[in-house]
Structures are given as C-alpha cells and as structure tokens.
C-alpha cells in the first residue's frame, strides 16, 4: 500500500485534472470562435468589418459592416445600466438594511423569481405591452426601438445587481454602521455615507456583471428592438451584436455565415474584456479586506 503521503498527492493530482475541464472549455471556446470567426474578418478586412456602417449580408453586393451592431450594443448596455443601477442599488439597500421578516422574504423571492424567468418571456411581454406602450406614449409610428430594448435589459439585469449589491452590503461589518449611529447619524445617513462606500467593490462588481448580462442577452431584445441594421437612435429600430447572430444564423450560408461567427468573436471579445474587468475588481476588493 502506498504511503498516506503519496496517496494524498495522487488524489490531489486527479482532482486537479478534473478541475482543468473548465480551463479546457474556455480554451476550446476561444479557439473555435477564432477558427470560425477569423476567416470572414480577414476576407472583409478588419477595418471594413468593425467600422463599416452598412450591413447587407444577402444583397448581390454584400456589405458586412458591424459598427451599427457594436454601437447599439454599447448604447443599449449603457442605457440599461443607467436605469437599472440606481433602482438596483436602492432596492439592495432596502433589502439588506431595511426590510425585515415577511417583507424581506417576499422581496428576496421576487428577485429570485425575476432572475429565473426565461428571457423569452421577457421578450414576449415586451413585444405585446411595452412596444405598443412606447408607441402610444411618445406618439411614434412604431414602438419597437432601442428604448424598448433598454427597458427590457434594465429589468433583466436588475436581479443580479440587486442580489450582488445586497450581498456586498450585508458583508459590511455591522460595526461601521454602529459607529456611525453612535456619532449621531441617522440610519439612512449611515447606509449612504458608510455602508455603500464600504461595499463599493462588491457593488461595482455587480454593475460589471450587469454589463456582461446586458451585452450577452439575445432572445428577449430580439422581439422588441425592431431588428433593422440601422445606426442606433433611441426611438429607431436597431440590431444588437447578439440579435444580429440570432436572427440570421438559421438562414445563413457562405461568407454571411462566417461573418456571423465573426460577430460572435467580437461579442466574445467584449465579454472577455468585461470579465477581465470583473476579475480585477473582485481581486482588488479581496485585497482591500
């Protein structure tokens, strides 16, 4: 029988091997997206691809410029953050500091359920109520627009912002708030001036996570954004990076199909940047503790 020491070492090695599946998966995804996405980029030209303002994938003289998609994704995400973050942080403060008993339980479940609702349902309801609502409210010929997508995205990222921010607020040592109260501040002042700054890194992480979610969402916004490859405008019909892939993939062939994979590659690059940012923030937050 091997000594206990070698046994422990070999167990550890075995477990490590399984754990590396995650790394392998990330590598696989990266390699495959490059393999599938690079040919079209090299054929179209990186500049034409990223900065081209026109997307006409099926015309006899096809154009593959994805600047409208990139800008739409950026604006859409930014808008969703603009709406979602204040509400999210407000609700997180309520959840973590004020709510008690049944109110807290109900709010927690509500957030969990919102997080679990399939995105298709958000899209469906958005299409049937939000889009006509926007049309009537703003007196537009049609309501399918960037604005509708922004609202749907804001709602969809709310749960993760609230949950993560609430966790960050929960983990602020109670001593800080006590100290603030003992100095004669009101509870609300303690939350605003001490708890939120102390939970900063967690809250920022939740926002970055929200950005990632918003950039990656496809199914819901496809149904409310009109889906035309215009340059973005708030009340105009727009197409996102994700919806560009989802809407044409099933009918595509040839260079068009390859270009769709190139869009996926660009999307992936965005996500990797967001992830790296998140990683940095979390790491910095850990160091701070």
């Amino acid at each position, binding site marked *: 029988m091997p000594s206990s020491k070698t046994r422990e070492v070999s167990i550890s090695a075995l477990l490590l091997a399984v754990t590396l599946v995650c790394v392998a998966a990330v590598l696989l995804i990266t390699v495959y997206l490059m393999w599938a996405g690079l040919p079209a980029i090299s054929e179209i030209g990186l500049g034409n691809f990223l900065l081209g303002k026109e997307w006409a994938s099926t015309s006899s003289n096809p154009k593959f410029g994805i600047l409208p998609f990139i800008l739409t994704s950026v604006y859409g995400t930014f808008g969703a953050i603009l709406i979602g973050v204040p509400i999210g942080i407000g609700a997180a403060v309520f959840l973590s500091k004020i709510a008690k008993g049944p109110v807290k339980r109900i709010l927690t479940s509500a957030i969990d359920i919102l997080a679990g609702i399939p995105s298709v349902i958000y899209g469906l309801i958005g299409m049937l109520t939000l889009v006509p609502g926007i049309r009537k409210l703003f007196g537009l010929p049609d309501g399918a627009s960037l604005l509708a997508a922004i609202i749907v995205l804001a709602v969809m990222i709310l749960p993760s912002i609230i949950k993560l921010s609430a966790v960050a607020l929960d983990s602020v040592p109670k001593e800080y708030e006590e100290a603030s109260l*003992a100095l004669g*501040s*009101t509870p609300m002042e303690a939350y605003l001036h001490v708890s939120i700054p102390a939970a900063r890194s967690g809250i920022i992480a939740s926002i970055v996570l929200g950005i990632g979610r918003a950039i990656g969402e496809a199914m819901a916004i496809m149904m409310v954004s009109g889906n035309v490859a215009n340059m973005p405008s708030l009340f105009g019909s727009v197409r996102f990076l994700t919806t560009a892939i989802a809407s044409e993939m099933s009918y595509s062939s040839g260079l068009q199909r390859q270009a769709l994979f190139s869009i996926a590659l660009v999307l992936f690059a965005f996500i990797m940047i967001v992830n790296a940012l998140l990683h940095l923030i979390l790491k910095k937050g850990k160091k701070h503790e």
Partner: protein
Amino acid sequence: MKQEPIIRCRKLSLWYSKTQALKDITIDFYPNSVNALIGPSGCGKSTFIKTLNRLNDLISEVRTEGEVFYRNTEIRDPGLDVTDLRKEIGMVFQKPNPFPMSIYDNIAYGPRTHGIRNRSELDDIVENALKSAALWDETSDRLRKSAMGLSGGQQQRLCIARAIAVQPQVLLMDEPTSALDPISTAKIEELLSVLKEKFTIIIVTHNMQQAMRSSDTTSFFLLGELVESGNTEQVFSHPHDKRTEDYITGRFG
C-alpha cells in the same frame, strides 16, 4: 456627593424578547469621573451601556422598563431625537472600527453629519480631536491615508478621537483595550485620566487590574444584576458582597 449626576438610572430592566438581560439597575454617574463596569461574560455590561445611547434600538424585540435620565432628558422616551442624544453620549467599541476612509474623513464624519461643512473649521476639529486622543504626532503627516493602515492601538485611539470630535459630554467605552497589546493598552489608560477632565467616562472592562488602575468608581454586574457599585478602592479592598469578592479574586469568570 458634590454634584448632580449626569446620568441617573432607576430600576432599569431590559428584555431581549423573552429573556431578561438587565434587572432593576439603579446607578448614578457623576461628571468628570471614570466609571468601570466589570463582570463575567454575558452579565449584561454591553447591554447596559448600549441603553445609555439607545444603540439597543437596532435590535428589534428589545423592551425596557424603569427610568434613565441624561441630565433632564429621559433617554427611554420614544419621541426623543436619538441623533441628538448620541451627539451628547459618544461611544467607543471593543473592536477598533474606523471607517474604511482616510484618517481625516473618519474624524470629520461626525461633525459633517451634524452639518459642519466649513473646511477650516473641520481642519481645526480634526486636529484638536487627534491631539486629545494623543494621536496627532503619529498621524499629522498622513491624514489623507486610509485609516485601515493604522495599527490596532492607533485605530482605537482614532475611534476615540472620532467620538471626541462631536464634543460629547459622556463617553461610553466597551472593552476598548481588550483587543490591544499591552503598550497600546497603557497608552489608552493614560488617556483616560486626561479625558475625564472634559468628559464623563463609562468603561466596560474584563481586566480587574485595569479597573483598579484607572477608574474612580467600579460597578460589578452579574447575570443582569448590579451586585455592587462604589468607590473603586473600596470595592476592590472591601467588597460588600461575597459574589464580588469571589469574582475579583478570580474564583470564577
């Protein structure tokens, strides 16, 4: 006794939902004195001092009975503005708990909360508070650095300075040295004798020697009761109660 008591407590009882943590506490604290509260763990010392600045309000299901006066204000009054009360009665906690901000902002936090925005006024307050807490020399060149970088003892003095900065009348201290090394402890004990010239100090301690060394009066709590209270020398040399004697000779606790 020469003066009016600054805090006057009559038959104070306190319940955490159903369990009684304080039983009929009657005690007076006089201005410009250091008052030690001793007793084994769980006897209600922290609970008692937190009723004095209503920090127990944070815990739902706390119920009190009896009377507690700060000068002529009934502390238990539900209509009382607790922020005013806490401005008068400051507190320092067991674990040093500076805010995760700069040293300056820590001290300025209280005055800012109470509406002082003027820059040079704040500068003065910060300097004076740090000097009163004997921390000015060590920190005057790093006021903008994070308070988290200070040592434990420095952090605790910072917390004292922070409490002083709102110019309270009474300072509550809950085992302020139990997390500190002997040298920092000595520094803070020294500070007590200076601070009592301006403030009334009520200090909880586990360390009998500390109570003996630095307090004017000592009160012994046991299981929520105030067993004995009086002049420190007298309590330690001639305790009235058998339980006090057992405790101070280390027979339990």
